[in-house]
């Protein structure tokens, strides 16, 4: 599997993501600067990492979504290549129209930086196939704007098409409101595109890949991707 990690000014999790791909998926990613106008040839997965691209000016992800490289990433996604956006990366790919909905200010208005529990909602995706539906993962979040919003019709479509990848949940795996760190609709933490090849999620699986980090539950995502070929 060949992975490219997109680097925008203000991004800060790109090296964590690279380390996770290196240690878990056994592949050394290439870094792609946002002003590049072409993607490296032969990428199977484009990873848009977390951080604070452009200082979250205007709206988180709004500026990055119009970077030159994003045009190429949209094109690559249309051609069926795999794209994953985590945290700010999720905000960026939503702003760019790769996924439906928007990430709004946390309902608590507070920046939330702690471990949360996630229920794996589907193993039917290249990103989650190493998990079983119903698995409960402990993974950190670190965001101010992770409150997923989409209109009711879109939410129904996401549910109907089994496109919700992860939900915030209680220790038994139930999506209880009290375990939702940001007010996201229907406790949604991560979603898939219609062709299931684009994933956006707020929590940071790349920061839960080693017991030293408090949890290695995020490793399954990188294991799922290890044998990926676009």
């Amino acid at each position, binding site marked *: 599997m060949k992975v490219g990690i997109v680097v925008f000014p203000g991004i800060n999790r790109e090296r964590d993501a690279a380390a996770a791909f290196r240690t878990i998926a056994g592949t050394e990613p290439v870094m792609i600067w946002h002003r590049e106008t072409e993607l490296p040839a032969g990428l199977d997965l484009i990873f848009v990492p977390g951080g604070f691209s452009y200082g979250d000016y*205007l*709206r988180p992800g*709004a500026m990055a979504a*119009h970077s030159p490289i994003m045009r190429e990433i949209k094109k690559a996604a249309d051609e069926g290549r795999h794209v994953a956006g985590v945290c700010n990366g999720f905000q960026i790919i*939503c*702003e760019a129209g790769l996924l*439906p*909905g*928007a990430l*709004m*200010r*946390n*309902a*608590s*208005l507070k920046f939330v930086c702690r471990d949360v529990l996630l229920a794996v909602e589907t193993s039917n995706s290249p990103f989650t196939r190493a998990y079983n539906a119903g698995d409960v993962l402990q993974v950190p979040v670190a965001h101010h704007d992770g*409150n997923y*919003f*989409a209109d009711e019709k879109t939410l129904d479509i996401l549910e109907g098409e089994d496109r919700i990848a992860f939900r915030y949940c209680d220790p038994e795996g139930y999506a209880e409101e009290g375990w939702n760190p940001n*007010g996201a609709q229907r406790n949604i933490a991560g979603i898939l595109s219609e062709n299931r090849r684009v994933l956006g999620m707020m929590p940071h699986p790349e920061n839960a890949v080693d017991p030293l980090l408090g949890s290695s539950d995020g490793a399954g995502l990188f294991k799922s991707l290890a044998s990926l070929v676009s």
Partner: protein
Amino acid sequence: MKARIHVTLKPGVLDPQGKAIQNALGGMGFEGVDEVRQGKYIEVDLTETDRAKAEAAVKTMCEKLLANTVVENYTIELV
């Protein structure tokens, strides 16, 4: 020509910041504040002198960048 753009959350979209402002106003003793919605105000100075062209350009700016039309509405005023 100057464009004055207001970007506001669509009705029905939760606005926790507006809610916090409303609570603060209540705490300060201001009565009768039914609801507060927070938005953004953006000014864009344009070299375009043709009103119709300017309006069309600013509308495209709003659709593409200044507003996220999934959750926000916008209004444009040219002065």
